[in-house]
């Protein structure tokens, strides 16, 4: 008789625990903050393609906690991401964040909520080499962060500090390159990027330090569960090395800001033909921060990507 239903995915001769793969296309997000747009890696981007006239959507939740001896800042972020393939090589991404941030001080709690700064970027596949079940791609990307979020929120104690504001009030630019080597058994994404903050100038006398970042991600297929049709379960391990320049206040460098952070992020991805669910926990394993800058405690990410 005929083949089974359409849209069936078979990995012939692939034994669950010995085959691998990598996952699929999409978008993760990009940037210094690690939000994702398209997908394979969870905490940054991938070079896998978005087909011409195809769209991928991603909704991501990010919980972030940082602290110093006297302060604790927590943030609950929701990000909506859309990716569109203009051609098979050129993809456009848009990211809109919403954040609730709290800062606990000895004097009390300060808080702000609202939509943050929207990000837009383009990624172009400069090089690709395809083979059966394998691909190698290099894709530079460049984008801007627009000052769409509020940056002058107040409470009873006055203007909230920049790290609590939903938006920065300034234009930022960023760029980098992401490389992906993918097989049906495993995938590696590696990215280097640079972000120039406050290119439009200081806001309320504040200018955030620029960010240099290197990320890598390994995804390995652990299993091919059969109970819900074709699907793949991946184990993910990512590393994020982030260096940030000192911030400036009224033209003077803040000695209690900036520094270097190295994070490891174990995670899981469950990928089907139409959607991916994933989660990762970013754990700082080394921090060399300046002065009394807040140290990152943990970041938890969970997201769903949908392929239209």
């Amino acid at each position: 008789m005929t083949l089974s239903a359409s849209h069936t995915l078979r990995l012939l001769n692939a034994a669950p625990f010995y085959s691998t793969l990598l996952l699929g296309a999409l978008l993760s997000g990009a940037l210094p903050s690690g939000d994702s747009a398209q997908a394979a890696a969870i905490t940054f981007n991938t070079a896998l393609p978005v087909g011409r006239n195809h769209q991928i959507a991603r909704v991501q939740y990010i919980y972030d906690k940082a602290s110093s001896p006297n302060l604790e800042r927590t943030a609950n972020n929701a990000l909506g991401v859309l990716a569109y393939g203009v051609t098979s090589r050129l993809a456009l991404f848009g990211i809109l964040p919403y954040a609730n941030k709290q800062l606990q001080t000895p004097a009390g709690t300060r808080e702000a909520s609202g939509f943050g700064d929207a990000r837009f970027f383009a990624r172009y596949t400069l090089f690709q080499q395809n083979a059966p079940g394998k691909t190698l791609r290099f894709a530079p990307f460049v984008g801007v962060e627009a000052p769409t979020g509020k940056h002058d929120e107040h409470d009873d104690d006055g203007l909230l500090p920049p790290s609590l504001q939903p938006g920065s009030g300034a234009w930022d630019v960023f760029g980098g390159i992401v490389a992906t080597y993918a097989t049906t058994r495993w995938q590696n994404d590696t990215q280097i990027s640079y972000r120039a903050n406050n290119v439009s100038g200081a806001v309320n006398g504040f200018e955030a330090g620029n960010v240099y970042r290197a990320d890598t991600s390994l995804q390995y297929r652990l299993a091919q569960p059969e109970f819900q049709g074709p699907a793949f379960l991946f184990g993910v391990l990512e590393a994020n090395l982030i260096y940030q320049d000192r911030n400036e206040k009224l033209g003077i460098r803040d000695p209690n800001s900036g520094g270097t952070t190295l994070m490891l992020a174990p995670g899981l991805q469950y990928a089907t033909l139409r959607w991916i669910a994933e989660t990762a926990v970013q754990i700082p394993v080394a921090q060399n921060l300046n002065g009394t800058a807040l140290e990152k405690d943990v970041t938890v990410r969970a997201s769903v990507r949908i392929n239209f």
Partner: protein
Amino acid sequence: MRKSMKIILSTATSLVLSSTLALAGEVTYDIRVDGMTCPFCVATSEKVLTGIDGVMSVSTDLDKGQITVCADDKVTFTDAQLEKMFLDRGFTYRSITSHEGCGAT
């Protein structure tokens, strides 16, 4: 008893004939595509193929880089058409082969 045998034989013959007629217009195409590594890659490739009139089913073997299409014999594929189709999705079309019927892949 003899009448019952006649009915059974007649029914079986009808089933075989109808099955043969149903398969007569079916063709299996095996399309080799490089660069597909992920479920989303498969989904975007299969989506465009299933949208073609006359295509009845599509399945993919990622390890082999092969998409198998069952279609009626009115469906035709050209190298140029498939090259553009997969290029638009970021993959590389390599070759296509076909054989009659969709039962044996």
